[in-house]
């Protein structure tokens, strides 16, 4: 099976502090991988390192087989990556609509390009607040916008950081349905989730991180057998 994303020995630093100590991950095309771990385990950092947003990194990151560790961020993105950051990153000076339209279509992306109508159908809140300034949206609305934004670009590998955070239960359910749908359409997804109940039914693979290292890695099928271990690792 072709790996959409393949990471070997990834190390990353913020300034002087060494955060990731050799991460190995492989995500097959069209599957969902969830990164679990306690606060500060380095999951966000892993996603940022993939995008080249850490101060320094080393190791190997292959996107559709192409080495990217030496590439600048925008070149990496153009290989078909869509990143939804933990802090959402909604632009205050842009309206909701402009925020949505901001990310350019990625030439390298092989994913399905969602139309604006489809997006507004998925998030009616956004349709309603279409012309208001990006950061005037409520916390949850911003979260929706951040996810919606990368679905337009044709990225086929999505990196989603804590997207269920701060959302009302109804919306969380909608998101879960969306991810299932995206998966069915062939998107490859790497999720960071705190909300295990949200992530559990969606993922094909689970990776547990601790102190910048992978401590456990298993498939959905093995989930039940790993429950006890997980409880211990995550104190769920």
């Amino acid at each position, binding site marked *: 099976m072709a790996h959409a994303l393949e990471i070997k020995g990834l190390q990353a630093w913020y300034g002087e502090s060494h955060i990731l100590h050799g991460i190995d991950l492989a995500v097959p095309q069209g599957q969902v991988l969830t990164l679990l771990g306690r*606060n500060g385990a380095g999951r966000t950092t892993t996603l940022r390192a993939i995008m080249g947003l850490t101060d320094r990194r080393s190791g190997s990151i292959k996107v559709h087989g192409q080495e990217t560790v030496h590439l600048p961020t925008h070149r990496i993105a153009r290989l078909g990556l869509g990143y939804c950051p933990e802090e959402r990153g909604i632009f205050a000076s842009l309206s909701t609509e402009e925020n949505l339209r901001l990310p350019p279509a990625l030439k390298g992306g092989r994913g399905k390009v969602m139309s604006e109508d489809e997006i507004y159908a998925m998030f009616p809140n956004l349709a309603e607040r279409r012309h208001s300034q990006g950061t005037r949206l*409520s916390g949850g609305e911003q979260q929706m916008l951040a996810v919606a934004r990368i679905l337009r670009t044709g990225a086929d590998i999505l990196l989603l950081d804590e997207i269920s955070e701060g959302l*009302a*239960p109804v919306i969380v359910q909608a998101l879960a349905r969306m991810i299932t749908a995206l998966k069915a359409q062939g998107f490859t997804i790497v999720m960071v989730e705190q909300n295990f109940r949200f992530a559990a039914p969606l993922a094909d693979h689970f990776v547990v991180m601790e102190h910048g290292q992978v401590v456990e890695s298993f498939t959905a099928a093995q989930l039940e057998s790993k429950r006890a271990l997980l409880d211990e690792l995550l104190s*769920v």
Partner: protein
Amino acid sequence: MSNLILETRKLTKEFKGFTAVDSVDLQVQRGHIHALIGPNGAGKTTCFNLLTKFLTPTRGQILFNGHDITGEKPAQIARRGVIRSFQISAVFPHLTVLENVRIGLQRFTGTSYHFWKGLSGLRQLDGRALELLELVDLRDMATLRAADLPYGRKRALEIATTMAMEPELMLLDEPTQGMGHEDVDRVTALIKRVAEGRTVLMVEHNMKVISSIADRITVLARGAVLAEGDYATVSRHPKVLEAYMGSEAAELQGAH
């Protein structure tokens, strides 16, 4: 004194033709942990901002202990004993954990404008500061820089600093957001502990937290009050189910 510590009357906030908070009559009982919940964009944070005057209400009144505080400035309101926390963590990153709390305590010494005094006066406050840190399990981290704390601990520090102000009313905006389960439980317990003898008004999405500590819940939707009551009442309210909790309601008890 009346049993109501905080009351709003027809509190309204409009942003360029959009009504974020729509004549809300909120009544918070002294000694309660009062939760404010609602779908995203319901106007909860805006409500907080109005109560602390980080935003100016378009209409309506805010009464604290029976005084009309609608016209007061943020710092004034804080001095009355209404202290808020922020949705994103707010500590003084380059000060030590101890100093963070001491800044809060310092206000009561009345020396804050004394630029000719030494710091020795402030050291007397260290004892009280450490007590507060003890309360949130931060005592052994007292000498660290706040910036070096893990996220969950920062929230705890924030609560300790807020406590230092001896608030009558604490406003907490999503205190458990972005926390691991471990920390969520810790902070929930913490809130319960610190709420003794004072009043807490909190915004929260985590139903487990709400169900375990809230005495009373107000549900906002589209800027207006949708329902109010204790957890049992609210969680069965059909409109709340529809607007907020979704089909998950049945299993709500075990959420998260």
